[in-house]
């Protein structure tokens, strides 16, 4: 259950954002679509607890995020949310496997089997021991999806996952994301300006 109500946010009393309410039953995916500068990334950060809203309520899986301390938010994010960034980021000194192991360590987990399963499912198992800067763009995106789902989150948040892709790849990536979400039992929220994605989602809201 994901429920937001009258979230407002402002940066340094200058830029004000007011967001539509979100109501998502468990099992449902959501597309949030809007043009640049309308606060898409801000909303994603609010939903993941990276930012705290000025007013309104954000309820995720029965927890009211606005009432958590930043330390509690770290833990909540760790246990419940996986984020796929527009541009993939990794710890550059580590290999693909080590990056995933680090993510597990942070969540107090250790499960090599799961790492293998995820990488096989994403068709990049052969890149297990590669440094992340040796990967192609597409492989990087897959590894960043792997990082988002390695700790079995209940919610996957994706920020503009397809903005720089051609139509074929765009559709591949979004199918991949949806498949991973289904395979590993997570809900998916994609935030984008890419209207090509509309056809892939039953439920969408425009900012």
């Amino acid at each position, binding site marked *: 259950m994901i429920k937001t109500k009258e979230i407002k946010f402002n940066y340094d009393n200058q830029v004000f954002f007011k967001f539509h309410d979100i109501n998502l039953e468990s099992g449902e995916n959501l597309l949030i679509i809007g043009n640049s500068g309308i606060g898409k990334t801000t909303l994603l950060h609010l939903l993941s607890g990276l930012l705290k809203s000025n007013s309104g309520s954000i309820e995720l899986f029965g927890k009211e995020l606005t009432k958590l301390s930043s330390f509690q938010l770290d833990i909540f994010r*760790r246990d419940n949310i996986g984020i796929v960034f527009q541009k993939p980021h990794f*710890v550059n000194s580590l290999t693909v496997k080590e990056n995933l192991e680090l993510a597990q360590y942070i969540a107090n987990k250790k499960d090599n089997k799961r790492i293998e399963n995820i990488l096989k499912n994403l068709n990049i198992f052969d890149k297990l021991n590669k440094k992340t800067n040796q990967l192609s763009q597409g492989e990087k995106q897959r590894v960043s999806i792997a990082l988002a789902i390695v700790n079995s989150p209940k919610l996957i948040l994706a920020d503009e996952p397809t903005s720089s892709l051609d139509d074929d790849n765009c559709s591949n990536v979004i199918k991949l994301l949806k498949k991973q979400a289904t395979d590993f039992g997570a809900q998916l929220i994609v935030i984008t300006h890419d209207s090509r994605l509309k056809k892939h989602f039953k439920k969408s809201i425009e900012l």
Partner: protein
Amino acid sequence: MNIFKLSIKNIFNKPLSSLITVALLALGIGIISLLLQLNSLIKDQMENNLRGIDMVVGAKGSPLQLILSSVYHIDSPTGNISLEEAEEISNNKMVGSSIKLLYGDNYKGYRIVGAEKKLIELYKGVIKQGKEWDNPYEVLVGSKVYEKLNIKLGDNLITSHGLRETGQSHSDKSFKVVGLLESSNSVMDQLIITSPESVWNIHSSHDDEEYEDENKEITAMLIKFKSPMNIIRFPRQINENTNLQAAVPSYEISRLFKLFGFGIETLTYLAYLIIIVSGFSLFINLFNSMNDRKYEMALIRTLGASRFQLSRMIIFESLILTIAGFAIGLLFSRFGVMFVSSLMDESINYNLDSIKILNEEYWLLGLSFLIGLISSLIPAIQVYKMNISKILADE
């Protein structure tokens, strides 16, 4: 995977900048530790050899030279004094015990000292093989000498005149090895000891049957007082009232240490400067890497790592580098000591062994730790206060 491992991986990911920091710190720590070690070893060695010697009497000249030649056997003697005058002093009621020393010859660079048997007791010498001398021309050989020159019991040593190898050799007369000494960790290890008569005889005209007592000379006399109080009055009396020279070893040695202490101090300051520079280099490395790594740190935070964990990663990186620098510096100083020791062994038959960890080196470890902590403080605070949302929005 854990934070510590991550820190190590990060260090190896930029080996060059890590290397320069470690090298600088190792250099600074190494220099200080080397100076400390040498200072302590030389002081130990010098003081060890001073035990039981309150005053040295010899011919007029430099007091330091007198001490170096007759206590440490590393300089030429100041000259000879008459046995008669020496005996007058040793009979003085303030004198507890005295040992007469005579020099004259060497065997392949090692000194042959004519001495009373009390010298062996002074250095707590133990005979390993053979016995003490009974007759002139019989010698006891110090451990370093027989090890180096492979001398065995019963060997005949043909000596050369003077204290250096190049002297004219007494081909007609040789010394017989009657005893080998156990190592005593003192100067005695590098001496060949014989009776005073041997030295008197070898240098007298061979036609004379008996050497007249009043003509006999000795090189120096080691003296122990009955009471330590005499150390102030007695040497001055000798220096003022006789044509002998009295020198107090402990005083001369502390004067010597003051002389080269200035050089050591300058070098130590230089080394501390290098350590400070290494701290700056460490700080700049960490600070720069903050910017290069801001996205990956934001990623680690979004994965749920706490601010503390990230700060800890930075502090670990810093500490690993400084502790590595400390360890390499210490290793470097040990090799330095070994090198200097082998140099000294070759040139003046002196060697320094027994390397231990000095208290000051624990301080250096603390200092390295502190530098690691201080250098990483600002970067760690920066990471702690990092606004991940802003970094990720800026991409």
